[in-house]
């Protein structure tokens, strides 16, 4: 049984880590990007960002003043049991969100869409979002918080099979060029792309591709992995860098996730995470153990399964 107290305390710690500590994979990716950037202003911006990450950690202060919209992904091993059940879990995550907003502090960004009323704690109707996934075996839960930034840098389009790869390239470029001007997408960023599903599923896939996969990860389908490489190079060849200045750093990495869709369509979504790619993860066990990490490891073979039945592959039994 995983205790509620442990869940809430861990969730508060995750909120702080996400807001303050840039994940190592993104930091390495940004350093690699900075190393090849030759635009004067773009280079200055990237160096300032690298200094900013250090300042945040030294001062234990949020990386960015816009601390985004905190959200939660909960992945449960099939054998996990939670004290009080899922209702108690959700209450603990809402309490942790409100408390961490005050204590860190985070900006209380969340308001009612029409009345603009504000609880000053990032909690409200539908906020924070809590999404779930499950894994075979496992007596643990993974708590993942993402503080997604940016009002800009996300778009959706219904493409069709006849649009093909050329149409995918076009919409990818359209999104980066449109949102990259003046740096509104807060680039260079991890760009997530959703392909297929339905409109809502496509948006979810793209957002998860941006927020729940690390820099350097590749889709398990080698042809999709090749497209990820191709689009990363394409995005960095626009001639645009950080803040929309002349340069070549738009995409720290490009991650694509797919879902089966209607035979006539090819939905596509594009999501830019931001320069403060805020995510933090912890695995909690019933015996009270907690392990922190920055890789959500969301897209397992199980999450990408395409068969009716699922059996754990023989060589993965030891991890199950």
């Amino acid at each position, binding site marked *: 049984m995983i205790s509620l107290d442990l869940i809430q305390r861990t969730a508060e710690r995750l909120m702080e880590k996400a807001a303050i500590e840039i994940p190592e994979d993104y930091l390495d990716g940004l350093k690699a990007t900075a190393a090849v950037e030759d635009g004067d202003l773009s280079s200055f911006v990237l160096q*300032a960002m690298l200094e900013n990450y250090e300042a945040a950690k030294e001062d234990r202060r949020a*990386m960015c003043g816009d*601390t985004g919209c905190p959200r939660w992904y909960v992945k449960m091993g099939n054998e996990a049991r939670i004290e009080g059940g899922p209702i108690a879990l959700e209450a603990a995550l809402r309490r942790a969100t409100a408390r961490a907003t005050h204590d860190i502090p985070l900006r209380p960004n969340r308001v009612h869409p029409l009345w603009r009323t504000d609880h000053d704690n990032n909690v409200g109707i539908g906020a924070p979002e809590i999404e779930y996934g499950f894994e075979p075996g496992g007596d643990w839960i993974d708590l993942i918080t993402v503080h997604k930034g940016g009002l800009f840098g996300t778009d959706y*389009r219904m493409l069709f099979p006849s*649009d093909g790869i050329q*149409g995918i390239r076009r919409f990818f470029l359209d999104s980066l060029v449109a949102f990259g001007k003046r740096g*509104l997408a807060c680039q260079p960023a991890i760009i997530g792309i959703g392909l297929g599903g339905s409109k809502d599923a496509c948006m979810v896939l793209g957002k998860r591709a941006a927020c729940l996969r690390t820099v350097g990860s590749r889709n398990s389908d080698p042809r999709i992995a090749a497209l990820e490489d191709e689009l990363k190079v394409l995005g960095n060849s626009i001639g645009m860098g950080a*803040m*929309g200045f002349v340069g070549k750093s738009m995409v720290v990495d490009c991650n694509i996730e797919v879902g089966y869709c209607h035979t006539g369509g090819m939905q596509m979504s594009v999501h830019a995470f931001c320069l403060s790619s805020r995510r933090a993860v912890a695995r909690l066990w019933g015996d009270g153990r907690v392990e922190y990490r920055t890789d959500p490891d969301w897209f397992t073979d199980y999450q990408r399964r395409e068969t009716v039945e699922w059996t754990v592959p023989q060589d993965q039994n030891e991890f199950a």
Partner: protein
Amino acid sequence: MDRSAGPKRIRLSTTPSREDLARLRIGDVVHLDGLIYTAREGVYMRACEQGDALPMDLPHESAANFHCSPAATVEADGSFTMGAVTATASFRFSKWIGEWFRLSGAKLIIGKGGMTSADYREHFVPNGAIYLTTVGYGTGALLGRGIKGVKALHWREDLGLAQAMWVLEAENMGPFIVESDLEGNSLFERENERISQNLARVYEGTKPAVLRRFGETDDRSDELIG
């Protein structure tokens, strides 16, 4: 990084003289000293549309308007905990900026992403003001270090923490990049022009979507297909 090769760095008062501003070139890097206040749509609506009197003496106390909501907390004893500060996108405030200059006498508008050179020529140049953009975006921790205290918090009850008017004491606060000069030139527009020259080549190997969208045509009788 070899700083000598980077952009020019300048310390600037938040009540700058015209001569101070005339020396700045687009692309210069600025750090600020003095009082700076936040004002965005909430403050603009109260001041410009409802005609409420400003709660501080502007531009005497500060001529620096920051498009920002800080990540900050008001503690039970009334003290403030200041976290990170980062600007919000300024283009959305164009409709109020002319009236705001008249009311506030601001000389520095600080925000994210700049405004259009049309706004600069129409509103900024006649008021002798320039635009400074934050860097990144998201050097919130560095900017937070440059804030030495909160002098006042106005209109909090009515507007909430995010939209309230925060009066902040800045010391060597930055970096900011000079986006517009006293003649109304825009750094972002200069950069966009240079980037646009390359775009046709980048778009080779792509094709328009078979189903278009309104916005890609303004003809509402267009069927959008083909």
